[in-house]
């Protein structure tokens, strides 16, 4: 908002690089996230050991040449667990974002356009929103047993209503536009109207929303694991590492510090990226935030 007005049209015309130049933080966030994702994919090649290998003689050792970030209460290498733990966070973040946006989009499009369905769908969404997300996720995991799949679904369900509301609000404004009325009047079929005329309007705010869902999913996964209702303890995840590290954190604070820092940095980067995308893709929303 403080940037001189002259740079605005230039940034809009010439694409990504001037944009990143104007928002160096977004560029940094993008680089950090790419590095984390690359590390997650290439985990075996990141100078890691087996993240689940227990070495009782090496318990609670501080950082050394052998293990860069120290070892935990079972002698497992913290660096290796941290790198493999990134896989869980990235997987949960991306799949929850993709699934909740996909499902929310379909529900929102249909509810926004078909009036009689709208009332029913929105009441269900109101009900879902009234339940605190973490509690709903806890309940879903505790009835269906802990596995990565359950965790993803449990985190996804509370996110759907927000996406549905967003899509629906776009549909409600767009459906009165002359080009939609024109399409209806020439007898275009409903699915085609939704896909060709209404869907494209939903894409920019949804991309922004996807980043926020991704950040909040990573956060929720960590919280669920921390509370013992998340990713099974056999899988190294940042939330599990914090949960195990907290018991001995006065003796071996690094067990808590590193996964905590990793979580904060990752989620911070996703949020900064989201804010940057919002400024670029959804100026109206950006003004209101």
């Amino acid at each position, binding site marked *: 908002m403080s940037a001189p007005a002259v740079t605005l049209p230039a940034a809009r015309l010439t694409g990504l690089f001037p944009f990143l130049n104007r928002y160096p933080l977004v560029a940094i966030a993008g680089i950090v996230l790419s590095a984390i994702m690359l590390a997650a994919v290439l985990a075996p090649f990141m100078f890691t050991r087996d993240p689940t290998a227990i070495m009782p003689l090496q318990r609670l050792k501080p950082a050394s040449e052998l293990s860069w970030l120290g070892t935990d209460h079972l002698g497992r290498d913290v660096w290796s667990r941290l790198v493999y733990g990134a896989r869980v966070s990235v997987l949960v973040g991306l799949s929850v974002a993709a699934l909740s946006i996909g499902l929310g989009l379909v529900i929102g499009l249909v509810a926004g356009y078909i009036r009689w369905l709208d009332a029913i769908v929105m009441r269900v969404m109101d*009900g879902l929103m009234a339940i605190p997300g973490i*509690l709903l996720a806890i309940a879903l995991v505790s009835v269906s047993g802990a596995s990565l799949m359950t965790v993803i679904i449990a985190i996804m369900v509370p996110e759907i209503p927000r996406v549905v509301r967003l899509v629906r609000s776009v549909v409600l404004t767009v459906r009165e536009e002359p080009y939609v009325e024109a399409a209806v009047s020439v007898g275009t079929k409903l699915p085609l109207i939704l896909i060709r005329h209404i869907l494209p309007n939903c894409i920019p705010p949804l991309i922004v929303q996807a980043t926020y869902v991704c950040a909040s999913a990573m956060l929720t996964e960590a919280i669920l694991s921390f*509370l013992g209702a998340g990713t099974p303890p056999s899988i190294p995840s940042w939330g599990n590492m914090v949960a195990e590290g907290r018991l001995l954190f006065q003796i071996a604070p690094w067990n808590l510090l590193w996964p905590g820092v990793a979580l*904060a940095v990752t989620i911070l980067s996703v949020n900064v990226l989201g804010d940057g995308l919002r400024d670029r893709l959804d100026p109206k929303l950006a003004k209101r935030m």
Partner: protein
Amino acid sequence: MISLIATRILSAIPVMGVVALIVFFMLRLSGDPAAILAGDTASSEQVDRIRVSLGLTKPLYEQFFGWIVQLLRFDLGTSLFTGLPVTTLIAQRIEPTAMLALTTIIFSVLVAVPMGVLAAWKSGGWIDRLVMVVCVLGFSVPVFVMGYFLIFNFAITLRWFPVQGYTSPFTDFGRFLTQITLPTLTLSFIYIALIARITRASVIEVLGEDYIRTARAKGQIELKVLFRHALKNAAVPIVTVIGLGVALLIGGVVVTESVYNIPGLGRLVVDAITRRDYPIIQGLILFFALIYVVLNLIIDIVYTLVDPRIRY
């Protein structure tokens, strides 16, 4: 006016109905509820006994309406582990949670609203940037990371506050204050981020209005312009977010109580997870959802009473 309030109250009923429906079907969609309720170690006779005692052999709609009638009598079922009614357990644990929520809301509003107003006033300046950084951090740092960070610095290194624990303000108020400080700071972080952000945005919007220019033109001091003229007119979205943020707060309470070993409802949830005490989880979901709905209902009604512009 009364009919307006009545409509608002009536519209909250279907929301709670949907919540009840979700909770009811969650247990049934996931398989055999009797087996889940009985736990992993139960014998098949025990499972059968539970099935009969809960009326799970009856048709689904009969079960649902029976359960609703039970809920309307404030009966949330019995804990599997302790054998006590869930309502009794909630009553026993509610005080620490209510106190933590209250101190957090008071502290957050006192900090976040002036922060947001200041950021809006100096929009684009360094104060504004600082506030925005605090907000993004608030949304990004997990509650437990914040909690252990504060414990490590202020309880272990500096020894200013106790590491954990809770004392009722009614028995020892001084002790209560020292023990509740760190949990309040921990939980406030995300709530402050939420409120400061929306305060900033809505005050910026209001500052462009004609009446602000008029107030300034007649020589009103800036502090009064900001807090009396601007904030008052920007209040609706701020109060709305404080209400909606309660859902966020409840999630944070569960974690914060776990970090600081506070024997509240959050600990009840965590203990229920480890013991797979499903009736407690179910009861607490309904209870928290009710709090959320009622609180937002009150906020809605207060609006209509206070702000003549709002008519539903």
